[in-house]
């Protein structure tokens, strides 16, 4: 790469950013959506959940009870709950009560939401609840039936224990927790929040960085060539490296603003809208700085890679065809890192490009700065960033970038 003058780089980046933000759709896509996404989710999610739970409660469910004899307490419980009960005899020829036989059609045709089969054998009862797991109404009916049966079982157990002359409470709970489980956790609320968010924030950061960079990367390279503006640009006293770095700076700025706004929206949502669910993670300044570095290196690699692949493409359409699957493929390392146990994570994971940064994000959100890991992921990421920038520089140095050749 030739010498890079920061002034030239800045002039190019400034022009690209001005041009980009003059499109109001860009502002919506890159500023409003990331900023409002999480606050809206935090508002909408509990509302939807609450309303759905209420709807389920209010559902009228039809339950068919098949039994030759029903205990009066069970029958009382079923009638008291919010269910319409029909009673008939147990079908004949059953090998087990869970065998649906012809009764599956009663559930599939939604004639009944669940079928309770109940049979007394000496001192015990056997039962099964037939239901259609793909229907929420059927699942709700099953849950209500099970609740009635569980209540009856608890009462029956207590009665039998007491009839035997024992204390029901000490017989059923000979070992019990003292105090609350939450009090026994030495992790602070902030640390617990860090653990929860370490599974979530890397996902958001990585996916948003990867997807937000696609459009500006295409627009500023092959888009510029298609609009016929690249030739005039290449005739200026501006090296190809300065052109690349100017465009890189613009894409990184645009993507960085989007990511920062999204994180701000997420933290705002956590602090003010979901305070009952999760706390703001408490992490040290060192972790915050390393987090910023990790995101910066990840962005550098992604943007340089996208710029080079877009510049290689013959058309905007071809660039889209190449970059879209790459963005989707980013989900693989993102998901992979969710399943890696950080307590005994092997160091080699921090040497795998892209995976290492995502793992680093998880560790840092838990406020764990492990020097060996930090050194490995920084070295590898700096090396890979340099390689991707070099590859991008090579693409930008091609003579044929001015025409539609590839």
């Amino acid at each position, binding site marked *: 790469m030739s010498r890079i003058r920061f002034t030239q780089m800045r002039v190019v980046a400034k022009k690209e950013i001005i041009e980009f933000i003059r*499109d109001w759709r860009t502002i919506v896509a890159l500023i409003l959506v990331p900023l409002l996404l999480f606050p809206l989710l935090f508002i909408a999610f509990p509302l939807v959940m609450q309303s759905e739970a209420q709807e389920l409660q209010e559902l009228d469910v039809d339950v068919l009870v098949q039994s030759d004899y029903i205990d009066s307490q069970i029958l009382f419980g079923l009638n008291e709950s919010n269910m319409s009960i029909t009673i008939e005899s147990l079908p004949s020829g059953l090998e087990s009560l869970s065998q649906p036989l012809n009764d599956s059609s009663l559930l599939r045709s939604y004639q009944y939401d669940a079928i309770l089969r109940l049979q007394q054998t000496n001192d015990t009862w056997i039962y099964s609840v037939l239901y259609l797991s793909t229907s929420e109404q059927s699942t709700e009916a099953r849950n209500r039936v099970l609740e009635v049966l569980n209540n009856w079982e608890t009462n029956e157990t207590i009665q039998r224990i007491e009839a035997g002359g024992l204390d029901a409470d000490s017989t059923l709970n000979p070992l019990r927790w003292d105090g609350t489980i939450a009090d026994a956790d030495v992790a602070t609320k902030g640390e617990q929040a860090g653990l929860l968010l370490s599974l979530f924030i890397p996902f958001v950061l990585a996916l948003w960085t990867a997807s937000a960079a696609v459009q500006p990367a295409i627009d500023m390279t092959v888009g510029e060539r298609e609009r016929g503006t690249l030739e005039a640009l290449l005739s200026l006293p501006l090296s190809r490296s300065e052109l690349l770095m100017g465009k890189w700076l613009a894409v990184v700025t645009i993507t960085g603003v989007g990511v920062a706004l999204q994180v701000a929206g997420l933290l705002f949502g956590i602090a003010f809208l979901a305070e009952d669910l999760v706390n703001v993670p408490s992490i040290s300044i060192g972790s915050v700085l390393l987090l910023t570095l990790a995101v910066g290196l990840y962005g550098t690699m992604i943007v340089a890679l996208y710029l080079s692949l877009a510049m290689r493409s013959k058309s905007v359409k071809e660039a889209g065809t190449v970059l879209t699957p790459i963005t989707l493929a980013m989900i693989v390392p993102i998901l992979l890192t969710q399943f890696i146990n950080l307590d005994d994570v092997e160091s080699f994971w921090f040497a795998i490009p892209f995976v290492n940064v995502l793992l680093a994000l998880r560790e840092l959100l838990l406020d764990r700065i492990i020097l060996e890991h930090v050194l490995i992921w920084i070295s590898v990421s700096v090396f890979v960033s340099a390689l991707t920038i070099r590859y991008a520089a090579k693409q930008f140095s091609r003579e044929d970038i001015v025409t539609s050749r590839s």
Partner: protein
Amino acid sequence: MNENLLHLTDVSKSFGEVNAIEHVSLDIKDRSVIGLVGGNGAGKTTLLRMMAGIYKPTTGRVYLKDGQNVDQMRSLLGVVPESTGLYSKLTAWENIRFHSRIHGIEDSVAWSRTIRFAELLDMQDSLHRYTEGFSRGMKQKTALLRALAHGPSILLLDEPTAGLDVTSARIVRKLVQRLKEEGGTVIYSTHHLAEAEQVCDRIIIVHNGTIRADGKPEELLQLTNTHSLEEAYVSLTSEVARPRQEDSIKTSKFALLWRRLFTRRHTYEVNEDE
């Protein structure tokens, strides 16, 4: 005595197997308007792009009077490509200012030069308008202002009147004349002989990547023993023109094979009664 500004010494340019330019040698003197005349695919744009430092010659050398490579001295050049290359979401002045800043020119200096030429081109009221809605003529005028704002020594114009109406084309030609009077050097590519005759004091006829003739209009007539430049052009470019070099875009063997898999050759019976 005119001084040599730009030299092309035995320059050739190939794109894969296509020889776009073959063994071209030229000296461009200051205070002159030089017309590069040729049909589509002749090699005019490739030649201009090499002069602008966008393409590097495969063999030979393009250099300025002090021996420096042209891509190291691009501030001496003002370039108007055929596509004009304006950013539609920027105003005319912002387009001009962007190029001037890259050239390292103060905004106030660029503005003064722009205003002076904008008056000639009747563009002063449109400088703060977005170029998105500009006509082809206005875009061409803006591109000219942009190329002039940093005070170049050589102006490279690729088909500057292509697609312009009569009035706009005339204004562009008048500007070129004015620049010549002020001592500027303009290299002007066109496929209109009449226009070249009107504007240029030296005409270079390019055909199939080679220079067929180079001189003043009367020298070309003398060389070909003809009475008009059109006859002279026809006699100098008698063999069939090759396709444009952009038409021979490289496509990988796999891509070609894949494309053929989904291509059917349709043939139909010829109805003799038709």
